[in-house]
């Protein structure tokens, strides 16, 4: 099995390096094909591992030592257990699809080869992240995906907005990574190891306060990657990247790394329910918060991005409340339908020559039937309608909230579910139905390559059926993750009903409201609209209180402190010495008389000192 592990892990790397070899050369299909092929290999290996793990085994290997100094020992160790294998499957499935899809999507792009190189590198990093058997290895993947995300968001580097977004994403993630790093340090100095098995075995021996801190710092790391408030703005801006990237990274995989971390570190979070509750509350807040922003946005990808954010909030609610398997389950299901949604959006973008405003579309159903159907499927799944995947996973989260008697959380999530349904179908309605407004703007939409649609179909299938395997899934993962006791059997059906009701309500409202195209622009004067369209003014706020002052402070530090104070002091000392020389060199005015006088002055001064000393000496002597 170790062989499969290594294949699963390194196949993407090989693909990436292969593509990188041709990075600067003009487009060549073979890079895309080989990268995709290798990913498929990885997928197959993962599947084999899955079946192996389902047999109740795990695979644990140690490749080699990475860092060893003092008491610190960090190997490149990889583990395939019930959790990581699920993640591997999710990652490889989505990325294989995205790779193949990209062959079509990036068809006309100069950086075709480069793109595949980055994309496969990302998959490799993600695999390292999920397969690592220790926190340091996790951190490698963690930063690796950050790097690839930076590369991919800024893929079109000539676009100012893209590079800005890339940097923003990287830096915001770095802020969180610091938290994570500190968490790792805390783990090391308290336990003496970073291996999961050692840490989780020892964690309960630690002081409650220490565990709390560990939990908090690790979660700060998770917040960055999963774009939780207040580190969320980067995710929406990250939509500047090519759409397959958004599908893979910013929907299915990387952003869920935070959730994965919390799930993985469940023995830690189980010890600290207070922190867990905080995580859940934050998750619920973000779910609602992001959903509201999605309501009014006029950028297709951003809408989906906010939706992702919102769904991540759901996952955190589950994870925070201790229902780790539920979180993982939703993670998986969400990965499928959200990737699908993004890829569909990608098709639309292609058709519309990169136009993203759904208001300028309308009636695309006629020209892009396949895409439309796939996107509707995905949206239904997202809305959580039975029997689609979202229904099973999302309803479970609501149940969890209800079951742990956090009714406010439940309420929030419940309303959010309605909002989710609404904005999903708002998008569908605006883009695919109603008047064909695109004609006014002179677009000539066309359907994407057939193989692109074909390749999306597995995702569509999974978006539909993933939820049906709930029981197998539970059996699989609960061998590693703690189970969750539901106390809601008596109200289960009612809960499902209430939730489905609001979802359906949301859908219906959206269809009704947008059946004739967009709302009137009067809306846009409304205060709520303004707040929402400006994302609660948070990016502006960040710009005002962080970015600008940082720039100003930096310039101040350089121009005022470094040059005018620190350096000037040094120069001043040097100049003072030199100036003293300049000013006193006239002592030597070349006149013999002056020179003689100086000698006498020296004599007199010495004499004065001598007399003073003698007087003093005699006085003391007397």
């Amino acid at each position: 099995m170790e062989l499969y592990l290594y294949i699963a892990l390194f196949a993407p790397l090989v693909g990436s390096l292969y593509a990188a070899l041709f990075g600067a050369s003009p487009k060549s299909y073979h890079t895309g094909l080989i990268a995709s092929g290798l990913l498929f290999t990885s997928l197959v290996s993962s599947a084999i591992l899955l079946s192996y793990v389902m047999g109740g085994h795990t695979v644990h290997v140690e490749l080699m030592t990475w860092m060893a100094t003092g008491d610190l020992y960090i190997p490149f160790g990889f583990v395939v257990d019930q959790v990581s294998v699920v993640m591997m499957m999710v990652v490889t499935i989505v990325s294989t699809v995205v790779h193949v899809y990209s062959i079509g999507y990036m068809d006309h792009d100069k950086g075709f080869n480069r793109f595949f190189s980055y994309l496969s590198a990302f998959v490799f990093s993600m695999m390292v992240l999920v397969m690592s058997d220790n926190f340091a290895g996790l951190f490698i993947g963690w930063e690796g995906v950050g790097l690839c995300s930076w590369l991919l968001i800024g893929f079109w580097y000539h676009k100012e907005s893209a590079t800005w977004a890339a940097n923003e994403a990287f830096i915001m993630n770095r802020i969180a990574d610091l938290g994570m790093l500190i968490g790792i340090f805390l783990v090391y100095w308290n336990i003496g190891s970073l291996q999961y098995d050692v840490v989780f075995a020892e964690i309960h021996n630690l002081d409650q306060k220490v565990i709390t801190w560990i939990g908090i710092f690790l979660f700060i790391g998770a917040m960055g990657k999963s774009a939780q408030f207040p580190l969320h703005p980067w995710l929406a801006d990250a939509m500047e990247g090519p759409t397959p990237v958004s599908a893979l990274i910013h929907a299915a995989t990387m952003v869920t790394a935070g959730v994965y971390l919390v799930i993985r570190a469940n023995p830690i979070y189980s010890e600290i329910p207070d922190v867990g509750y905080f995580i859940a509350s934050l998750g619920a807040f973000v779910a609602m918060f992001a959903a509201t922003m999605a309501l009014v946005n006029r950028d297709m990808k951003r809408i989906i991005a906010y939706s992702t954010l919102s769904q991540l909030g759901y996952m955190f609610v589950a994870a925070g409340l201790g229902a780790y398997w539920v979180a993982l389950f939703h993670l998986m299901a969400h990965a499928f339908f959200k990737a699908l949604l993004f890829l569909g959006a990608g098709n639309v973008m292609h058709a519309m020559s990169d136009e993203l405003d759904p208001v300028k579309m309308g009636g695309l159903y006629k020209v892009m039937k396949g895409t439309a159907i796939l996107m509707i499927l995905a949206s239904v799944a997202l809305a959580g309608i039975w029997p689609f995947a979202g229904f099973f996973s999302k309803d479970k989260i609501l149940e969890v909230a209800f079951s742990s008697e956090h009714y406010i959380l439940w309420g929030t999530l419940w309303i959010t579910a309605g909002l989710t349904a609404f904005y999903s179908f708002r998008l569908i309605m605006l883009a695919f139905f109603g008047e064909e407004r695109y004609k006014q703007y002179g677009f000539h939409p066309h359907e994407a390559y057939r193989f692109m649609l074909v390749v999306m179909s597995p995702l569509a299938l999974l978006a539909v059926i993933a939820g049906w395997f709930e029981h197998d899934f539970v059996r699989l993962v609960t061998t590693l993750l703690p189970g969750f006791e539901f106390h809601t059997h008596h109200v289960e059906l009612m809960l499902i009903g209430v939730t489905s009701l609001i979802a359906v309500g949301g859908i219906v409202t959206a269809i009704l409201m947008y059946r004739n195209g967009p709302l009137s622009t009067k809306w846009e004067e409304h205060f709520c609209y303004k707040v929402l369209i400006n994302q609660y003014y948070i990016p502006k706020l960040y710009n005002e209180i962080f970015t600008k002052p940082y720039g100003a402070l930096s310039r101040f530090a350089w121009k005022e402190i470094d040059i005018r104070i620190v350096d000037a002091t040094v120069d001043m000392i040097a100049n003072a010495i030199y100036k003293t020389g300049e000013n006193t060199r006239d002592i030597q005015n070349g006149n013999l008389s002056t020179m003689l006088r100086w000698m006498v002055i020296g004599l007199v001064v010495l004499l004065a000192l001598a007399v003073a000393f003698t007087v003093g000496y005699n006085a003391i002597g007397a």
Partner: protein
Amino acid sequence: MLDHILSILIFFPALAAMLGFVVAKDSIRAYGITVAAIEFVLSLWLWYAYDPMSSGMQFMESAPLIPAFGINYLLGIDGISLFIVILSTFFTLIGIASLTETRRVKDMIITLLFLEMTMVGVFAALDAIVFYVFWELSLVPMLYIIGAWGGPLRIYASVKFFLYTFTGSLVMLVGMLFMAYFYYQATGMWSFSILEWYRLILPENFQLWLFAAFFLGFAIKVPMFPFHTWLPYAHGQAPTIGSVILAAILLKMGTYAFVRFSLPLFPDASVFFMFPIAAIAIIMIIYTAMVAYAQEDIKQVVAYSSVSHMGVIILGTFALNVEGVSGSVFLMLAHGVVSGALFLLVGVIYDRRHTKLMSEFGGLASVMPRYATIFGIMMMASVGLPLTINFVGEFLSLLGFYKQSHTYTLIAGTAIIVGAIYMLAAYKKMFFGNVTNEENKKLKDVNKTELIGLVPLVILAIWLGVYPKPVLEPINNSVESVIQLMHDKAQSSEAKARIPNLSDAGAMKLHQEAH
């Protein structure tokens, strides 16, 4: 030959430089490369012959120099210095091989070979005065390189560099003499041997003063805030090769000296000054990173980033535990590789455009993709991405200091954020966007000569990031003996507590290996 390999390593380049006067001008480059290559191979041989399991000094050489005053020609290498020596020879080779300078190449190469002698000498010396000799002597070739081949402010920059460092090291010399005198009082013999000094246990108040004296010399060299202002000038004005060597090797002398002198000689003072120095290190990290962000000149960005990274090294050094010190020693190498590479990269663009202002560039990624890639890799190494060389060092340094203080490390950890900010911003300004400047449209990508210098560095940056063990292990072994020595010598209870006792820790290690 192994008995005298260190002497050979030190004096071979100097001798070659002398003979180089005879070599004709058009052949001098080949001559320089040959000499540097031989020297590099010799240093690799040194590594090969080095026993990584032993923590003590190896290849020791001793000859009386001024026995009447206790000065001996005493050389030796341990895990801490071994790799810096190799790095020195390596960078000299790379520097000469990728030299693009056309003015008075002969002088340049002879100077570089002399510089190589001093660099190897500093790291191989075990006698304080011999150390000092090479330490000071290294200023002279660098002065010449900056002053003769530098930019418009070169004279100011070179003089500032020279005098500033010279002043600091003179104070250090007083400290060394005091140390020797102390040894004399304790034993009745003069000695400047560091190994002999290690055996001295100094009263705490003496330690504080001596520590301060040594500190000034080292801090200016490192350079630590607020003594850092010579560095941007030196880098800003120096030719590429000068900046590369300065950043990669010369700055390491300061941090190396902290590990070699300050820690083992003054354990109590090290603990006493740990937090003030950590505070300075934090200022270095954050403040200079901000200053770097404000720069308009790409070379200055790299220069200030050097200071910022040196802050992490200092922090790791003053973690006073094996993790931190090993990390900081490793980070010295890492920073050498990365900043050396970055300066080489800046040199590449400077050779083409004769400007280093970032506003002059933009969109270079499309004109010079290979250049952008290498720059990108090195930039990522510089911001400490895992699996690059810098990360290992930074991680261990911060990890080490975390043992001493949570808050300090938390603040210092912002290094990874602020570092990313200025680096990414600079990269964005240079490489992203559209090519707006006409002159940039016709730029040629990196050529072979430049690749000769850059590719090995890229390989090194990734190789040692993925597999640091061959380097980290010898470092670790030597650092452990230093830490143990410090623990044994420490007098105050605080110092005893702060500096781990490794002989106890053995048990814990066994416990871990069981897992």
